[in-house]
């Protein structure tokens, strides 16, 4: 298929077609099973992170990268290696000598050729299972001439573009519901931001998983299981092989019976009760019970992000509501009814020192409860779907179970429009950072916006000519003051050191800075595309002088 975009056609590399033919031939010769095994081997180290579902999401993604200087090229390189479905490069420039000094995807003899096609073929050679296309036109021109072009993509990564073009691109992407990621390298500084109306995360995969084990309020089946054990058994071997969960529930029950139904007033009190029941201090199940005792006295609470989602206006459904919000509405009902304030149990149980058989029994009780909770949520989802006039089976059982398993960690991200980032931000966290003593990274955010204004006025970036550096420093200072004024922070000051350094860099795109910024852009793309992990919650500033980054929450 050929798509017309303005004057230039989307050129699909011949290479791609040949490779596709070759793949077909290979498929005939060798069963698809073998190709799949090869793919699984190749992606093994990342499948261990985002799983088959994550990989499939990447393989479905169609990504557009605007400008393939080192920043765009490095971002795309990481995504191509990871096995995205297809990409289209948009770049209108010709290769210059300076590209040989900072871009690894430019071949030595390609000076004078078009950058889009050159980088495209090098990337395609890197992973032939990725479909590669390019458009030899400047992104700015394409934004003006053919906005609907961007509608075909899952994600657009805009690199090294000025704020003015980005504001327009942002509008287009929002109109077509396309994810937008902005990345920029500028001297020893960088900037990455995400722009999308709404991004929901079910599988947040937090580093520290909250153990939801309900020791403080065991349900009847769990209580029944606990009663099957005699934790004071005379048999010393059994005594040290009773799972700690059983110990905790039983010891808590006994405590409450002795204290008129009261909970222990402190963790220390509970620990003392546990210690009094153990026979020796090397009983591993008791060691584990002591370590986990805090789960009884301070069981997990609902996270603020989950509460925010439950109270979100989108949880008030209409016929156009997404699967996610329908499930959130069902979750809300569940919490208020069957759940008695608790979200569905995820059903996972940490290892507990015990006999295999005891542990499996515990595991089964938790899994059964998780199944039952998920079934209850499913029932609510079905009836909600009916109420809003949709097919009650529109959401699959698997999707609902997956949602329930991760219910505690749901996240919703909404990003302000790029144009709105310019408006007053009085009282925001950003202003606090700007007012702080070391405000370098906040000041850099202001300065990176100031250089765009500078460029709009003077048709060049500050510091590109050796002879004009001193003048540029003064001009940039006053431009930065204007930016501060516009965002309602006129009282803040921008360190002179940073202004000078920005001018020293003269808009240089250093390879290593581009590799970091491109790396972050690729990583955030993967999070957005797979719906896993937690993406940036606001604009990011990367400072290569200090090797630090700061995210400004909007």
């Amino acid at each position, binding site marked *: 298929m050929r798509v017309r975009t303005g004057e230039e056609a989307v050129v699909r590399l011949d290479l791609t077609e040949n490779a596709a033919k070759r793949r077909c031939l290979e498929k005939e010769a060798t069963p698809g099973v073998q190709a799949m095994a*090869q793919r699984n*081997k190749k*992606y*093994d*180290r*990342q*499948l*261990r*992170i985002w799983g088959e579902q994550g990989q499939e999401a990447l393989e479905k993604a169609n990504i557009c990268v605007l400008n393939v200087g080192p920043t765009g090229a490095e971002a795309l*390189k*990481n995504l191509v*290696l*990871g*096995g995205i479905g297809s990409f289209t490069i948009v770049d209108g420039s010709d290769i210059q*000598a*300076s590209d*040989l*000094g*900072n*871009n*690894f995807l430019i*071949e*030595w003899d390609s000076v004078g050729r078009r950058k889009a096609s050159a980088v495209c073929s090098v990337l395609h050679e890197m*992973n032939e299972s990725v479909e590669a296309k390019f458009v030899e036109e400047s992104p700015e021109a394409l934004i003006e001439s053919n906005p609907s072009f961007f509608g075909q993509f899952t994600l657009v990564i805009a690199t090294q573009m000025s704020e003015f073009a980005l504001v327009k691109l942002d509008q287009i992407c929002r109109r077509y519901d396309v994810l937008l990621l902005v990345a920029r390298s500028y001297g*020893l500084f960088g900037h990455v931001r995400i722009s999308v109306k709404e991004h929901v995360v079910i599988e947040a*995969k937090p*580093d520290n998983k909250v153990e939801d084990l309900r020791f403080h309020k065991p349900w009847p089946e769990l209580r029944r299981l606990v009663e099957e054990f005699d934790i004071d058994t005379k048999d010393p071997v059994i005594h040290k092989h009773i799972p700690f969960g059983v110990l905790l529930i039983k010891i808590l029950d006994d405590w409450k019976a002795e204290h008129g139904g009261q909970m222990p007033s402190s963790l220390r009190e509970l620990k003392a009760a546990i210690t009094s029941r153990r026979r020796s201090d090397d009983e591993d199940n008791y060691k584990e019970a002591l370590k986990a005792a805090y789960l009884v006295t301070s069981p997990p609470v609902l996270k603020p992000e989950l509460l925010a989602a439950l109270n979100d206006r989108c949880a008030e459904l209409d016929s156009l509501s997404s699967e996610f919000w329908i499930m959130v509405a069902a979750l809300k009902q569940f919490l208020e009814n069957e759940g008695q304030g608790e979200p569905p149990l995820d059903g996972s149980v940490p*290892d*507990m*020192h*015990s*006999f*295999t058989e005891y542990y*499996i029994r515990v595991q089964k009780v938790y899994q059964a409860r998780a199944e039952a909770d998920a079934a209850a949520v499913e029932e609510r989802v079905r009836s909600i779907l009916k109420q809003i006039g949709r097919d009650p089976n529109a959401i699959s059982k698997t999707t609902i179970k997956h949602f329930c398993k991760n219910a505690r960690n749901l996240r919703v991200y909404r990003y302000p429009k790029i144009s709105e980032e310019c408006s007053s931000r009085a009282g925001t966290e950003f202003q606090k950072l700007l007012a702080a003593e070391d405000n370098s990274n906040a000041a850099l955010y202001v300065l990176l916006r100031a250089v765009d204004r500078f460029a709009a006025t003077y048709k060049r970036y500050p510091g590109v000519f050796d002879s004009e550096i001193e003048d540029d420093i003064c001009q940039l200072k006053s431009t930065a003051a204007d930016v501060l004024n516009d965002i309602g922070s006129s009282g803040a000051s921008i360190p002179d*050191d940073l202004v000078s*350094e920005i001018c*020293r*860099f003269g808009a*240089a795109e*250093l*390879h*290593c800075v581009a*590799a*970091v910024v*491109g*790396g*972050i852009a*690729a*990583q*955030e793309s993967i999070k957005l595309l797979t719906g896993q*992990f*937690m993406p*940036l919650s606001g604009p*990011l500033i990367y400072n*290569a002088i*200090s*090797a*630090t*980054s700061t*995210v400004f929450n909007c």
Partner: protein
Amino acid sequence: MKKRKGEDEPWAPEPEVMAETTDIEGRWRDLDRLLLRPGILVGPGFEPGIDTRDMIRNDCRVLVIGAGGLGCELLKDLALTGFGNLEVIDMDTIDVSNLNRQFLFRMRDVGQPKAKIAAERVMERVKGVNVVPHYCRIEDKDSSFFDQFQIIVLGLDSLEARSYINAVVCGFLEYEPDGSPILTTIKPMVDGGTEGFKGHARVIIPGMTPCFQCSMWLFPPQVTFPLCTLAETPRSPAHCIEFVHLIQWGQDRTGETFDPDNPEHMKWIYEQAAKRAEQYSISGVTYSLTQGVVKNIIPAIASTNAIVAATCALETLKIATMCSKGMEVFMQYTGTDGVYMRTFQNEKDPNCIVCSAGVPVEVEATTTLQKFIDVLLKDSRFKNKISKPSVSLQGENLYMQAPPILEEETRPNLLRPLRTLMGGEGGILNINDKRLKGILRVQVIFKTTDVDMDTAGGG
């Protein structure tokens, strides 16, 4: 495929004099802004100008250890940061599972030495840079090999290898009698590491910032399961796999050495583990998990490697040229929840067994080991700290107080001149004693006499 360990062929052509044609006018325009222009946020002694640029291109030699996920990125980054003389050492060959991030390799390269292919590809793309590959273990190189480089950059995945290189590099370090490091003996290291969405980069300036050993505690110990749990009460798929790996293999396949790279071996482990899991009603044993547990596979992706390697390469440039302020010595990266990139200044261990100066002790050139021990026992600085000291020089045990078998073997050394035992020069001796919590490093300085002018004191 069996690795051909220890082989080290010079694949790369002899370093050629850089042809003028490799530097098209304007090629280094972006980097030149940093190297040719003066700045404010720069390191001490930064001298902007052509000389600095030429120094990293022509004179500064950088060794990259590891040509894997970080190594590939490092070579690319350093080459495009203006370093003209790179060498890379790696004992591994390319595997299919490397291709999702080790971007210099292709399917057709599988089985080839990583160092060789990585060097070829970087030289092919970045004209003018010379990359010499070494396909061997780091232990195969003697310390004079490592001494040739001005900076050593580590892209490793093992604690052992890091620890080894750290000991080698700190071994070059010498101190003045006043305890300050002798600047010309300092060989900076830059170390990167990644796991999934997380990573770190650190700068080690031996003698000035904490060495690897000073902060070993930063690395969490590996999780191990009790053997009796594996044997008697397995509860997880990993328990079943580890049982077959650690115990059942020895029982059922007596005399065969388990090779994790042999697919038949791995398949056997998987099948037996699956059987065992079924027997105990445990679910979740898969081939992939079996590999993960047995080989202790660390998940790895392109983006984290790119971020960490580029951070290391930039710090390498800063160390070499001072064109920008250096970061605090330890950078931690986490990409699971937003992006978190923070730096820390951790503490140097003043008694570090690898990088500390050692307490200077001056003795006559003719002192025997026994006399030396007596000197230590009389020295007020060690009062109540030592009572029965054992003495070692590097890997050589000069005198051991225990066990009896070693005491007897090393006893004859007591009557020998310390100077002979130390190979004619002063240096660091390790003193062990029950009263000491750690190891006491003593810097031996031989008094110069009129008769003996050829060896100056100072170790």
